[in-house]
């Protein structure tokens, strides 16, 4: 999932990447990656909420 082999955006590179990682993003399908993304978003805001109390101790 992290990175791709080259830096030139061509259709062949795109096909190779899709094939290599089996990536598809069609349709409004709530998949595992969406759960991960939402969890990361909530975690980010939770850290910020925690930061309020940390700052209060300065």
């Amino acid at each position: 999932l992290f990175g791709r082999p080259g830096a030139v955006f061509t259709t062949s590179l795109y096909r190779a990447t899709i094939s290599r990682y089996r990536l598809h993003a069609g349709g409004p399908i709530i998949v595992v990656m969406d759960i991960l993304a939402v969890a990361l978003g909530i975690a980010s805001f939770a850290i910020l909420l925690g930061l309020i109390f940390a700052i209060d101790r300065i």
Partner: protein
Amino acid sequence: MTFLGWLTIVLFIVILTALALPLGRYMAAVYTDERTFLDPLFRTPERLLYRVMRVDADRGQDWKAYAKSAIIFSLAGWLLLYLILRTQTLWNFTGLNPQKFHSAPWNVTFNTTSSFVTNTNWQYYGGETTMSYFSQMAGLTVQNFLSAGVGIAVAVALIRGIVSRSGKSLGNFWHDLVRTVLWVLTPISFVIALVLVFQGSIQNFSHYATLTTLTHLPQTIAMGPVASQEAIKLLGTNGGGFFNTNSAHPFENPTAFTNLVEMLVVLVIPAALVFAYGRMAGNRRQGYAIYGTMAVMFLGAVIVAYIAEAHGSPAQHAAGLHTHAIAGSAGGNLEGKEQRFGIAGSALFDVVTTVTSCGAVNSAIESFTGIGGAVPMANLSASEVIFGGVGTGLYSILLYVLLAVFIGGLMVGRTPEYLGKKIEAREIKLVAIGLLITPLAALFSTALATASSAGRASISAVGSGPQGFSETFYAYLSQANNNGSAFAGYTGFIQPNAGNLGSHGVTFADLLGGFTMLFARFAPILFALAVAGALAGKRISPVGLGTMRTDNPTFVVLLIGVIVLVGALTFFPALLLGPLVQGLTGHLYG
């Protein structure tokens, strides 16, 4: 350089000041609950919104309660936007997805959601090939209003903290947010959208048009509700274009007149808030001093950018190209610029949108000369204090003001005071950390991205030269400063076909960028509110002979010195590795 070019720049500053003064008076009235001419229109919807949200808008909040409200509200916005963007085809029944676009991948959506909630509007996607009208309107445009509202609310809270004479209350977040959206952002956006339509912007829900060009080849013309999104994109210093080419697209920015209007719209609220601050502090000269600081630094940036772009690049001169203005051409470095805006209209727009958190572009920043390209980077390095974003600019420069007061106090051996309130160790610790978060986020993310193969995969330029470094540095500097403009090239989205089918994101760039935007936006907000809370409870000392004045030219010079010094010490090595190397050589990097 041309006379007209310089005249445009001078007129721009004059008109901006003339508009910002009355708007500042109006905004001060809005936030102190004085009567305004829009009260009959918005009082009822205001009460209705409080009832729906079940909040008591009259209850004062201390800094922690205010901060919690801002964070939780933004989290709710984040979740809603993510849902809208990832279920794009489920909303086809509204008729607002005529092209039947699918959703962008999860990682790109994570980045986009974080981007719009933080007022950054960094876009790895192209609007006309990715987003349905529903996503643009119900998702992105709504966040354009709300994220701008959060920024302004925080600035107002900091003002209250500085000027309050008793208690710990900073006001009420919900009250400030609702009044910002209803009394300030909505009416001005409405007027600006009409002006844009009058000048040729489009506002429709049509299917994309297919036309035959003069060379007998078919061309698809993207449609959509452009003007309404364009207005708040600029007014809220959001910057996310309806189209991929942003304000260079003739439907977003049709004429030289709209170019001038758009630039004024970007700066008018950040400038007006400074005057509002002077009024709310009961000392207008405080506002004038901050405005003077911002205006001097702004003009410096414009002058350098205009001269650099009008002169052209060393590579152009080495190739024997003429860069003088001639009839029908503005001359200079016109690569990546629209002829209808010219050099001055492009350089000025570039500075306007990079001193603020707007990030809209009407030209390709990557095509700027080395020195011209260094200007937006230097602007971003100033961490949004040269007018800055709506709200962001004011609270950021007020933190710098406190730092300058502290340094000035140390230099003359007096206890630092600002508007009668003693600045002590705790406030300075909060100020220092608050000011360092954004630069740290930018530099850390740049280092991570350039040092890892996953990060370098997003660079478009082949090789690892200064151009590649500039792209990477600019990408994370822009995201950390919630700006959103790009040095082109650097990507987090591979989309060979319009409509997202089969497209995928570059996870490293998408996630790192998303985290950078979230923390660099909200952590400084928390520190600014903490400073406000610390100052709110302080007793006001009477002004004496030993009080250092903060409303005169001497303080303006001190403040500029502190801002430049902090920015230069933090970012100069990085600027040297990218644009400055390019500016000092005739070699044309890829």
